[in-house]
C-alpha cells in the first residue's frame, strides 16, 4: 500500500475531499492531520510546534473517531488559534467502540509566519469512510472550506 494522502476530485465542487492511506489507525490520524495542515497552509514548513497537549477522543466506529479527531483540530484552530499535528498515541478497541489516548503538537497561528491557502470550517459526514484493508487502512473525508 502506498501511504499518504491525495486530493480527490469529483466528490465535491465547493469543498475539498481527501483520500488517506496508512498502515495503522494511528498513522491514518497522523496523515489526516498533516493533510489538513497542508490544505490550510501555503507554507506548512513554517509549522513549528511549541507545545504538546493531550487529546482524548471516543467514538463508536473508526470513521467517527477520524471525524471527531479532525473536528477537534478545527475547533482548536478557531477557538484557541492553534494548528496541530498528531504526535503519537494509542487506540483502544472495545465493544463500545474506539478510544484515542494521544498527544498533539501545536503551534499558535502567527500571521507573520503562516500563510493560509483556505480555511477549513468543518469536517463533514459527506462521503466519510474509513475501511480496513489487508495491508492497512483507507479513509476519505470532505472538508467544508
Amino acid at each position, binding site marked *: 500500500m502506498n501511504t499518504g494522502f491525495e486530493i480527490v476530485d469529483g466528490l465535491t*465542487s465547493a*469543498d475539498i475531499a481527501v483520500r488517506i492511506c496508512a498502515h495503522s489507525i494511528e498513522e491514518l490520524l497522523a496523515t489526516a492531520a498533516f493533510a489538513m495542515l497542508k490544505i*490550510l497552509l*501555503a507554507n506548512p514548513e513554517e509549522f513549528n510546534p511549541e507545545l504538546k497537549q493531550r487529546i482524548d477522543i471516543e467514538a463508536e466506529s473508526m470513521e467517527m473517531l477520524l471525524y471527531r479527531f479532525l473536528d477537534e483540530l478545527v*475547533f482548536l484552530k*478557531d477557538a484557541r488559534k492553534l494548528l496541530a499535528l498528531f504526535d503519537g498515541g494509542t487506540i483502544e478497541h472495545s465493544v463500545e467502540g474506539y478510544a484515542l489516548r494521544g498527544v498533539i503538537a501545536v503551534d499558535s*497561528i502567527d500571521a507573520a509566519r503562516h500563510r*493560509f491557502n483556505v480555511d477549513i*470550517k468543518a469536517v463533514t*459526514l459527506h462521503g466519510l469512510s474509513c475501511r480496513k484493508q489487508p495491508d492497512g487502512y483507507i479513509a476519505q473525508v470532505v472538508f467544508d472550506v
Partner: protein
Amino acid sequence: MQTAGLTKISDCLYEIRTSFKKGMRVPARIYGSDAIIAGMDEAVKEQITNVCMLPGIQRYALCMPDGHSGYGFPIGGVAAIDPSEGVISPGGIGFDINCGIRLLSTSVRLEEVEGNVTKLIDRLFSRIPAGVGKDGMLSFSKKDFDDAMVKGARWALERGYAEKDDIDAIEDGGCMQGADPKCISSRAYERGIGQMGTLGSGNHFLEIQVAKKEHVYDDTIAREFGIVHDNQIMVMIHCGSRGFGHQVATDYLQKFLSAMPKYGLKMPDRELACAPFDSKEGQEYYRAMNCAINIAFLNRQLIAHRVREVFAEVFNKSPRELGIRTVYDVCHNTAKLETHEIDGKETRLLVHRKGATRAFPAGEKELPPRYRAAGQPVIIGGSMESGSLLLVGLESAKDAFYTTAHGSGRVMSRSQAKKQFRGDALQKELLGKGIYIRTASLSGLAEEAGAAYKDIDEVGRSAEMAGLSKIIARLFPIGNIKG
C-alpha cells in the same frame, strides 16, 4: 446533468417524479434553463430526490437555478415541512447558518471614487478582519455574547453600531425570535466569541460595486431599492455566522444521528440527519439555529458599520452625508416558520433553504413597510469578475414557497480551479479590467475565479423566466476584499 428521469414542466422547470426512487414522498423540481440543467452536476439529482424522503415534506423538494451538489441537500435546495408531523434537518440549512448578503447603497458616484478605489479597498482590507485566525472587531463577555445571540443586529443598534434604518432592512428585522443560548455548546461559544465582525474566507467577500443606468432594468423599483443615479457606488457584504454556526451544525448533526433510531427515522444520507420538529432534539436545534442566525445578522451589521467608518475616513464626510444605507440583508442558509398555501389552506410550514433566498412579493406583511409596494429586494452575489444582480420577489414564486437563487453556483471544483488559475495572475488580470482585489490568500483567490462559477446572467434569466424573481439591476465590481 443528464435529462433521464427529468420531465420538462415549462421552459425553466423540470420535475423528477416519485417513481424515480423508492421512498420519495413528493416529486422533486429543478429550476433552470436547458443550459443551466445541462451544466448541473449529476449528484444534484441524487441529492434532491433524497430530500424528497424527509418526513413531513410538502408538495416538492426544490432546487434553484444556481444549484450544485452539497452535503445531504444540494446547494440551492428547498424543503417545506409540516412542523406538526415532520422534521427539522441541519443538512437542509447548512454549516454556515445564515450565510447571507447585505447590500448597501451610497450617494457616492463612480467619478468621486476613481483614484480612491485603491485607498478605499486597502483601508477596508486593513480594518475588516478577513482570512484565518483573525481576531473579531469587538471583545464579548459571555453575557454580551448571550445577549447578541438573542438580539442579533439589534444588539448592535443598542450599542451604536447600527442605525434604526439598518434594522428595518434586514430579513426578520435582524432578530429571529426563539433563540435560546442554553442550547449552545461550550465549543460553539469558544469558536464564535472571538470572531464577531470578521469576514472569513472561501467564497465570502466584501465588494465595491457600481450601478450603471444602462443596466437598470426597472427604474421605478430600482429607485425604491436606493439606486437613484447613474454610476452609483454600492457595497456588498457576503458572510455568515463563522465558526459559531459551523459548530452548532456539527454538534446537532451528531446529536440527531444518535437520536434518529429512537424516532424510527432513517435517511439515505447521514448529512440528512433529522429529528421531529416537536421533539426535544428538534426544538433545541431550532433554538440554537436561531442563535446562529442572529449571530450572522450581527456579524454583517458590524462589518457594515466598519464600512461606514472607512468611507467617512476616506471621503472626509459623515456616513449620513455619504448616504450609506442598507438596501436589504438576505439569509441563504436557514429554516424558518412561514405561512404558505397548501391545498387552498393557509398552512404553517418550516421552510428549509440551503443556498437559496427567500423572495417575498409585493404586499407581503412580513416585509418592511418601505418594500411592501415593490416586493422584497433579492441579492444574487456573483463572482469577483462577473458582478452581481439585484432582483425583486414575485407572486409567481408562490409554488417555490417564495424562493429564488442566491449566487452563481460553482461549476468547477476548487482543486480544478487551482490547477487552471494562479491567484497572482488573476489579481493582475482583474486590475487590468478595473477591479482592484486585496486577498489574505492568493491560492484562495484562484479558487474563486469567475470561470469556476456559472454564468450569473443565465442564472438570473432562469430565475426570471421561471417567475421566481425579476432582475432590477446588474451591479459591476470595481474593488473586492477576500479572506
